[in-house]
């Protein structure tokens, strides 16, 4: 099926098989920052933004993005919208293998837009749908709490 979408700010047209998931479409398009993990909506590694909201890239079909706006970690990186989060993840050792990191960053970015100064419990709740098998989460919470404090001038 022919689809046309705005992908990281550029209009993209493609011919996709109806059964192709959004995450597989993105990766096949060369955007490999979004990862395919559990493929049934549990792990959060495939998180991308559609219409401004973070969604599971494995629980959405590429054909469903026809006419929509899709943003990936590559787009957010290029716009520098999450540069401070990325620096804090680096500084705080909030990643080891990096498989979950794109999803963590997108979800954290969304949380801070909704709630500029979340508690550590709020951060844990909002990240509850994103698995990390390396860090034990503490460093991820630290990094996000750091950025919340910095952005809020505290």
């Amino acid at each position, binding site marked *: *099926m022919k689809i046309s979408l705005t992908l990281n700010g550029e209009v993209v047209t493609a011919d996709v*098989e*109806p*059964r192709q*998931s959004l995450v*597989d479409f993105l990766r096949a398009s060369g955007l490999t920052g979004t990862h395919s993990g559990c*493929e*049934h*909506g549990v792990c*959060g590694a495939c*998180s991308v933004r559609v219409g401004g*909201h*973070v*969604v*599971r890239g*494995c*629980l*959405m*079909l590429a*054909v*469903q993005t*026809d006419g929509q706006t899709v943003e990936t970690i590559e787009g957010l990186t290029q716009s520098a919208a999450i540069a401070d989060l990325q620096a804090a993840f680096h500084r705080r050792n909030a990643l080891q293998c990096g498989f979950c990191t794109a999803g963590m960053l997108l*979800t954290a970015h*969304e949380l801070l837009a909704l709630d500029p100064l979340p508690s550590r419990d709020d951060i*844990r*709740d*909002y990240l*509850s*749908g*994103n698995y990390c098998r390396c860090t034990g989460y503490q460093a991820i919470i630290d990094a996000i709490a750091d950025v919340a404090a910095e952005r809020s001038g505290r």
Partner: protein
Amino acid sequence: MKPAPFEYVRATSVDDAMARYIEAEDARYLAGGQSLLAALNFRLDAPELLIDISQIGALRGIGRQGNAVIIGAMTRHAEVAADPLVTAHLPLLAQAVAHVAHPAIRHRGTIGGSIALADPASEMPACALALSAVLHVNGPDGLRTISADDFFRGIYETALMPGEILTQIEFPLPATEARHGFAELARRKGDYAMTGLALMTGPSPRIVWFALSDRPVRARTAEAALAAGETRANIAALATDGINVLGDLNASDAVKRHYARILLSRVLQEAGLP
């Protein structure tokens, strides 16, 4: 883990969706897709056609109609959570929807999809029952309404007939003096509940369990005790009286009965019962 091949069509109206359903040999309606697409990835199901009904404007939105709040079936969980009518008139729903999976799932999943799927561990079916919702259905044989009391028939089983579409959920406004309560036990926020409770007080109280049996179920003995003004301890002791409690991978039926007594006592206390 990829789904078997299928065709996809975006329906433009409920009539268009139903016509395509009848035409096809083996079609499924696609709502938010947060359960269906996972099932297809696992190849638990392999239909030949997906009819996407999530973009049909008539199935979306929240409005007040007389003494009820009407929610379009394709309204997403995140939209329900943020709606001022829901916050003002259906605080039970507002509280419960925050427990539906994780933020990314709530951005896509729909209230109607959740009710029509009828997962016994889901929050929305239990709320529909606790709030005495009326389910509006459109199908090849025309329009009909089904009371939430008659809708849930078993695990993933509802009163919907093949080809029928749940279009709207009608929530009668609760009595002004009615209070609500909600609680669920899960290992992490957003995980499937091990035991869950939705409660409305008032002249005819409703105590509804989810993740306890094969469907959302009313605790009718406990409801009668609540209506009769019994103490919290006496009501909680009847938490699962007459209910077919089913154990699962997370908890045996005995553990679930134990959880139920604790949850009911806790929620009654939060709702202001002595």
